[in-house]
């Protein structure tokens, strides 16, 4: 209904043709992935869509620089594909599974997840925690930027006729752990707040940490101040509790019908603590195992 000005549909088989269509100055053209967001929310100004279905962007491939997931890979592909299914001990697939319903997962794409940039989209939080890189292409070049950069400055990155080709999840170090924790009204409801944590340990000390918090701002927030406090430290309950308190002290969440700002702040601490705890426990059990 809100695509009421749509007069053209294109389904090119060639990336350059897709980019050319998108770059036309006189026809407002938008790329179409699965449609679960674009068609649902609509783009009133769009006069043309470019369906990305036939561009061959739907593969998942393991390479030396990491796992390449095409932009048109559906969320269900992430769950079913043997490479992505086993990534980070199944972390990405299990998060993808609880992100939305099966029907939507069959249509919604990884590229769409990036563009929608919903702050409580757990798959997005997980990709951020795994330090995913985004591969972009325009008429002149291909480039790779961090997902964090992409999410923070999406309009700038997509301002020229630009397409997301996919994401690359860099190889994970040994001794890593991941966790994603959420608070929600019911088990299957969208989270009120959620946190994704990634830690890497070497000889008991924290080598790398990424902590992403959703549900406190319009976009997911990376808590670098908390990460800094963890680097080089030996994990214990006190350190994690301290990190969680830091997280709480630096966020200024919004209120909406799901919960108040105060509650979100308090829960930011809880989900950060729990996500870090889960990640750390994973490191420890891997060590023992």
């Amino acid at each position: 209904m809100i695509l009421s000005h749509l007069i053209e549909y294109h389904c090119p088989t060639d990336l350059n043709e897709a980019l050319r269509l998108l770059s036309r100055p006189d026809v407002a053209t938008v790329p179409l992935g699965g449609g679960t967001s674009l068609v649902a929310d609509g783009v009133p100004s769009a006069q043309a869509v470019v369906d990305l279905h036939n561009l061959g962007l739907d593969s998942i491939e393991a390479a030396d620089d990491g796992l390449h997931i095409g932009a048109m890979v559906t969320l269900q592909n992430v769950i079913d594909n043997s490479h992505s299914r086993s990534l980070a001990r199944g972390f990405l697939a299990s998060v993808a599974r609880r992100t939305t319903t099966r029907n939507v997962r069959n249509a919604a794409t990884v590229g769409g997840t990036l563009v929608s940039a919903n702050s409580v989209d757990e798959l997005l939080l997980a990709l951020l925690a795994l330090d995913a890189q985004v591969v972009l292409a325009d008429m002149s070049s291909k480039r790779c930027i961090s997902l964090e950069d992409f999410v923070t400055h999406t309009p700038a990155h997509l301002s020229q006729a630009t397409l997301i080709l996919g994401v690359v999840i860099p190889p994970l170090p040994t001794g890593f752990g991941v966790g994603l924790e959420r608070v929600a009204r019911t088990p299957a409801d969208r989270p009120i707040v959620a946190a994704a944590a990634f830690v890497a340990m070497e000889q008991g000390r924290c080598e790398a940490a990424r902590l992403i918090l959703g549900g406190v701002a319009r976009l997911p927030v990376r808590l670098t101040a908390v990460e800094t406090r963890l680097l080089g430290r030996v994990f214990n309950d006190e350190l994690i509790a301290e990190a969680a308190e830091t997280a709480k002290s630096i966020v200024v969440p919004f209120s909406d019908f799901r919960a108040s700002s105060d509650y979100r702040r308090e829960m930011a601490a809880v989900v950060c603590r729990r996500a870090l705890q889960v990640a750390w426990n994973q490191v420890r059990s891997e060590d023992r195992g």
Partner: protein
Amino acid sequence: MKITFVINEETETWDVSPDDIFLDVLRHRSYFGVKRGCEDSSCGLCTVLLDGQAVNACTLLAAQVNGRSITTIEGLGTRDHLSPLQQAFVECGAVQCGYCTPAMILAAKALLDTCPEPTEADVRDTLSSVYCRCTGYVKPVEAVLRLMRQHQGT
């Protein structure tokens, strides 16, 4: 524009507009088994199978279907020869108001076609695409599990 695709095993060519939603086109062409419950992929009542996978027709452009294969509830059984899932839903009392029944049956079919021995969690995960206000999902889940057990038994 024209789209050529397979619907319920028949190849058809339909004239559609770029902005046509597939759900509207189906109902306009008397595929009434696909129901409208929302406009934003949140209720699943408009489930159809696209290349064998359950998707919501309310957020699918008709143009996207070009060259692909669609199954609607009309393509399953008949009164004298219900499909196994239809039979199971009828026998288990899984049909109450019936408005979500075609969607549930199609979603379950997509699951069983690719995963013949799903767990109850898999069945619930699949049926969670379709919201129902009558059954609490109890008997629909039972129906799918019962059919699966029957298949295992034979």
